Each structure stands twice: as C-alpha cells, then as structure tokens.
C-alpha cells in the first residue's frame, strides 16, 4: 500500500483534532451567524434588533477563537495543507476574511454611538456577515472534500470560477440553512414573549429546507466523493438528529432543538472530514498530486508536543468557556435586559456606592 495513504496514529489524531476544532466552531459560531441572519427579518425595530444581538454579544468572540485556533493548528500540524489550502483558495478566503473583519467590529461599534442611520448601517452589516461567512465556509469545505486540481508544486491550479463547483455551492447553501435554523433555536432559548414566538415560527419554517438540503448534500458526498464507507454512520446520526429536532420543535422542547441542530452540525462535520481521510486535499489533477494526512504533516516530534499541550489546554478552555455560558445563561426580557438578582453582598456594595456618589 502507498505509504502516503497509511498515516500514523499521531497523524490520525491530529486530523481528528482539526476536524473537532472546525466542528466545535461550526456548532458554537453557527448559532451566532444564525442570530445575525435573523436580525434583518425577525426583529421589527431597532430595539428588537439590539435585543437579538444581545443574546450572543457576551459569547460570540470566544466562539470565534475556535477557528482562529483551528487555522493555527492546521499550520502547526499540517503545514503543507495550510499552505496549499490558504494560497489556493485565495479569492474565497479573502472575501471570507473581509466579512469576518467587519463582522467583528460590527458587534462593538453598532451601539458605540447613537444615530438611527448608524445603527441601520451596522445592522445591515450584521445581516450580510451572518450569511456570507457560512456560505463561504461551505464553499471552502465543499471544495476541500470534493477536490480541486493541484499541481506537482502542491499549488492549486483550479481557477476562481472553478472553485464555485456545484457541490461547493450546495455546501454553502446548506451551511447557511443549518446555521440559520441553529441560530433560531438559540433565540427561542434566550428570548421571551413575542420575539421568542417569532423565533420559534422561523425555526419551523427553516426546518424542512435544512433537513432536505442537508440530506441532499451528505448523500451526494457519500455517493460521489467520500473515501470511507463508515461515514454512513455519522451521516445517519446527522439525519436522525434533524428528524429528532423536527419532533422536538413539535413538542416545543427548545433546549432539545438546539441540541438537535448542534449534533447534526457536528455529525455533518464528522461525515465530511471522515470521508476526506486519508486525504486532506484530494486532487482532481494527476495521480499522486493529492495532499494526504500522511504526506502533509509536521514531524512526529512537533505533533507529539503539540498534542500533549493541546490535550492539556482544551479541557481548561472548555471549563472557563462553559462557565461564561453559565454566567450568561438567563433569558433576556422583552425589554432586552436580564433582571439582575441582587445578592446580599452585591446589595451591600451597591449601598456603599450609592452613599459615596451622593456625597459628590
């Protein structure tokens, strides 16, 4: 067997880890994107738009770091993959970068000064940068798993138009639908009153398109591109999760709907990445030009050290990130606030503060 198709356990572990980093990013940042998509059509006025964005404001940044780290992890563990992917998908990735850049500042700058036109402009950016990144990530992922033409130098020679192959476009659309649904579920959990009801209706509306689109994408992938037959299993999990989500929607189990779309996104990522193995970037060009897990990784020394460090750090990150979610677990009121439950200590401090300011 070609040694390039037989990676070591260490290389497999890193491949799985990178799939996991992408999967967690899609699950967490996925609902952030979905909330942004809803800013345009679910909210009716400035205040409601502010309320929608408030549901993700404290947590989106930590969610985004999963992909920053994911990119750096590809660099550290599979430098050849990093180099070929990022240089080869230049136009798509640049567009993705620009949308991520303005998206980041939109969160902070929207409410940094008053003005209707100002806020409407940033809300427009929120909607655009809610739709655009998932669509572009879909194209990137679709192109990676379906393959592009790579030459002997390991440079992608597929043209910019060639990157818009039908499978990649479908992947883009499906990611948008899935994240939109996912974000709507998140909103039903974080809101109250009429907005929550509207989010629920939005989710029901999106359920079938997401289910059908997802099924079409994964079946197409499994039949045409996947290198593995075991990925039928995660494919089935994704399908069951979405059917379960549908039932949870009927039963008004908001928590379960969010878990449902989360599991479906993770399972879809597992299907796509799993079926990619033992390649990291299959080539539609000459035989042997595809990048493999075995042939594009760092040395065993680097992989070992970084694996140990990552296995120590990721649980720590999960602990404090979960804590952040716990701190901001409350539903927002219809007025967009959380009614603070004043603890005795906080009350005492507030009292002291009040006296102090009254003196001024």
């Amino acid at each position, binding site marked *: 067997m070609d040694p390039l198709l037989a990676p070591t356990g260490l290389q497999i572990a890193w491949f799985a880890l990178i799939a996991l980093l992408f999967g967690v990013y899609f699950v967490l940042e996925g609902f952030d994107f979905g909330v942004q998509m809803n800013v345009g059509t679910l909210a009716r006025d400035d205040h409601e738009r502010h309320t929608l964005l*408030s549901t993700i*404001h*404290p947590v989106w*940044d*930590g969610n985004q*770091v999963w992909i*920053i*780290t994911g990119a*750096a992890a590809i*660099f*550290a*563990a599979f*430098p050849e993959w*990093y*180099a070929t*992917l*990022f*240089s080869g998908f*230049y*136009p798509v*990735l*640049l567009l993705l*970068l*620009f949308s991520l*850049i*303005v*998206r*980041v*500042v939109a*969160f*902070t*700058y929207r*409410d*940094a000064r008053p003005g209707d036109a100002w806020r409407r402009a940033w809300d427009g950016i929120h909607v655009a940068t809610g739709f655009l990144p998932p669509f572009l990530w879909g194209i990137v992922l679709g192109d990676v798993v379906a393959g592009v033409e790579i030459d002997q*130098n*390991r*440079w992608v020679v597929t043209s910019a138009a060639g990157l818009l192959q039908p499978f990649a476009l479908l992947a883009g659309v499906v990611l948008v639908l899935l994240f939109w649904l996912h974000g709507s579920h998140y909103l039903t959990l974080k809101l109250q009153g009429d907005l929550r009801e509207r989010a629920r209706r939005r989710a029901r509306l999106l359920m079938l398109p997401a289910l059908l689109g997802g099924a079409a994408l994964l079946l197409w992938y499994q039949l045409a591109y996947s290198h593995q037959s075991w990925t039928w299993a995660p494919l089935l999990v994704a399908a069951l999760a979405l059917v379960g989500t549908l039932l949870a929607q009927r039963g008004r189990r908001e928590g379960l709907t969010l878990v449902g779309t989360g599991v479906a996104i993770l399972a879809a990522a597992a299907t796509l990445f799993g079926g990619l193995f033992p390649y990291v970037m299959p080539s539609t060009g000459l035989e042997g030009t595809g990048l493999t897990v075995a042939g594009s990784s760092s*040395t065993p*020394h*680097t992989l070992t050290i*970084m694996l140990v*460090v*990552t296995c120590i750090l990721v649980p720590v*990150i999960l602990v*404090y*990130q979960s804590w*952040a979610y716990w*701190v*901001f677990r409350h539903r927002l009121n219809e007025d967009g*606030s959380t009614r*603070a439950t004043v603890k005795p*200590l*906080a009350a005492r401090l507030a*009292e*002291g*503060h*009040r006296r*102090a*300011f009254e003196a*001024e």
Partner: protein
Amino acid sequence: MEALDLARWQFGITTVYHFLFVPLTIGLSLLVAVMQTFSVFAKDPDRKDAWTRMTKFFGSLLVLNFAIGIATGIVQEFQFGLNWSEYARYVGDVFGAPLALEGLIAFFLESVFLGLWIFGWNKLPEKIHLLTIWAVALGTTCSAYFIVAANSFMQHPVGATLNPETGRAELDSLWAVLTNVTTLAAFPHVIAGAWLVAAAFVTGIASWHMVKHHRAADDVGRDTEEGSRQHELARGLYRPTVRFGVLAMVLAAIALVVSGDQQAQIMFKQQPMKMASAEALCETETGASFSILTVGGPDAFAQDCSSITHLIEVPYVTSFLATHTFDATLQGVDELNAQAQEEFGSTVTDIHGNQVTAEYRPNLFVTYWSFRLMMGLAAFSGVVALWALWATRKGRTTGSRAFQWFTVLAIPMPFFANSAGWVFTEMGRQPWVVHPNPDDPTVRLMTLQGVSSHPAGWVVASLIAFTLVYGVLAVVWFLLIRRTALQGAPLPHRDPDTGQLDTPMLSFDY
C-alpha cells in the same frame, strides 16, 4: 511591480495597521486592570468612585480598540498561507507551534474573559469580576509573547534543523524556540512599547479633561458651587489619573531603554547587517560613530552605500551601543554584503525554479530612518512626562492650553514609534524572511523564496481591498475613540426602582 513586492506591501500594510491597535490593547488592558484594582481595594469611598469611573471610562475606550485589534488579527492568522505559502511550508513544523499556542493560551483567555468583563458588571461578584480583566490583560500579554517568539525565529532561528531530504526546517526543541535569546530580549521591548502607548493615551486624555475642568472652575470662580464642583473633578478625578499615566510612562520608558540596549547588543551579533544599515555604517570601522544625520542621493533607496554623506556624527557611540566598549570594530554594510555573497552565493533559486541575483543589503534609507524615528518619536513621551509631573506637582492642577494640546498631540507618537520599530526590524532583516543564525546558518530562507505563486493581479486586487476596508475602519475607529474620549468619565447613575448604582459603560448590557 511584481507579485513579490505586492505581497510584501500587503504584509507590511496589514501588519503595521494591526500593530497600531494591538499595543494600545496590550497596555490599556493592564492599566484598566490596575485602575479597577485600585477601585476594588480603595478604603476611601471617594477614591473608590473615582477609580470606578476611570475604569469604565478607559474600559470603554479599551473595548472600542479591542474590536479592531481582533478583527485585523484574524488576517494575521491566515496570511502566512494566503501570500506566503512557500514560507509556510518551509517553517511550518517550527513556526506553527507558537501560533497554535497563541490561540490556545492567549486568544481564548482574552476573548472569553473580555465578554465576561464587559457584561459581567453587577452580575459577577466584585472580586471575581476584577479577576476577569486581569485574565484579559494576561491573555493580551501572552499573545505578545508567542508572536514575538514566532517572529524571533525569523530573526534568529534556534531549536530547529534543516532536513535536507524535504528541504524544510524541523523542530528540535519547542523550549529552545520559546526561550530564544532574541525572544527574551525582544519581548520586554515590545511590551514596554505597548505600555508606553497606553500610558501616553491615558495621560493625554486625562490631562485634557483635567485642564478643561480646571479652566471651567476658574471661569465661574472656585468659590461658587459649580466652580468647586469643576475644581474637584480636575483635582480629585483627573489629576490622579494623569499622575498614574505619567508613572506608567516613566516605568515603560525605563523598561524600553534597558531592553532596547540589550536588544541592540544582541542584534549587532545576530544580524550585523541590520545594525550596520541602521547606522549607515558603510565601511568597517573601529570606534564607530553614531550618525545623527546622514543624507543620500536617490541611490540610497537602491541600497547603494557609496552615495551617502554623513553630516552629523557622535564619535564612538555606535561601538558603545554594540558592545558597551568604545573601541570595538564593527563591520560595514559593504564588507558584510561581500561576506554573504561568498557564504550564500551570488544567485538563489526562486519559487519557480529560476536563478536570480542575490542582494544581501536591506533598504538602507528605510532601515536608517525607521530606527531614528522609533527613538525620536518615543522621546516625545519623555517631554510629556516631565511637563505633566511639573504641572501636577504637590496637588496642583493646571489650566494651561499649551499643556492640554501638547499632551493630546503626544498621544499618537508612541503608536508611530512602535510602527517604526517594527518596520525597522522587519525591513532590516531583508532580504531574508528567515535570517540565518550566525552559529548555524543552515536554516534560512530568502523572502523571494517564501511567496505564494499568485498572479500579480490577484495580489493587487486584495491589496486595494485591504487598503480601502482598513482605511474606512481607521476613520470609524478614530471618530469613535475621539467621541468617547471627549465625553469624559461617565457620571454615576442610580436606578430609580432598585436603588442600584451603575456607572454606564458604552451602552452594552445583557
């Protein structure tokens, strides 16, 4: 222009731009953490309130600045692959590790805890909330460490060997990479530079408001109720912040000089060409002078050392900077270039397999002037610090318009000094992207060997797009910072229903 030059411009523009905001984030997150610590542990209720207000005031500015730093930082994580794919292949085994560590250790910490800090007011217990801003400050500082470690590998590769089979650098020891002597010298310098930026920022803005309230008090008379209120704002609220900012400036300046001196000595050994260019030292000299003003013909841009004229010089100082002795012999640019031609060849192979002429001299003009600009601009802060100390001596405040404007105009100087320092160290490293380590020069890569194989048109398009997007963002950033800074410290506000006291911070809530 070729794709290589365009890619270099793009890296330069995006990175210098990113690093305009980053030093303020690093420095200000620490200063805000210290302010909040003063507030939490203050015994005197007036002091406590003053520091709470300052924490929220500068905290709002920090949050505005953080956003643009994060946004432009995403690009940094991707562009080694976008435009420098062959570099990424060559160093990935070594260079990817500090970047991944930066993500795992620094970015998660700062991002998660920044969210907790901004939205955790009145939600978290006071001391836990204080810890969140310290976590942010720690995160930003760690981030600087890992990125300086990665950069130091490009300046002075250690802990790695060349695999002749693959033609790639391979990691021997991550510990060696992280404790590179170049990193240990550069990190304190970078951090002190960041502190200076933030300290000048705090001093400038607080001075502005101190003078404003001082003058307002004088206008209505200090014995009136309004006058005494205004005077108290100048004396009780802003003066301590000015003093605090000045103290931070002084500490940062001392750290900058000490670490800069260390770094210069190391760099004379590790990258003599960079330092010779910085000093416009063309010929090898013993007891080399320090050039204060050197002018060159148009050829100076074209890296020709023979066309320059030294106008003002201080004898022996360059030798002293290099070795702390006055009579050291330093090699000049021409001799070093000849040596490099000998050692590394007069031609090199580019990414397309073509042989091209190798030129081992960096751009003299840029290297020489960016080095002087770095030091000259930072010196501005020295004047501000002395003036502010004098103006606020023994409990005084001042109404001097000149002082007010000078401190504000001095705010951008350390920002530009930081940029100049990075332009110097990166341009001075050319033509290398990985500069050969004099002890073991096998791991090395020239910049022209690291670039991606893109048609020039793509790079032009992305360069234009970056410049436009970044230009608009810079204007938005400036207007928001200016607006928030002019508003001054937020007034305390009491909720009429609950009686809870809250000082607003922008209009964020959860």
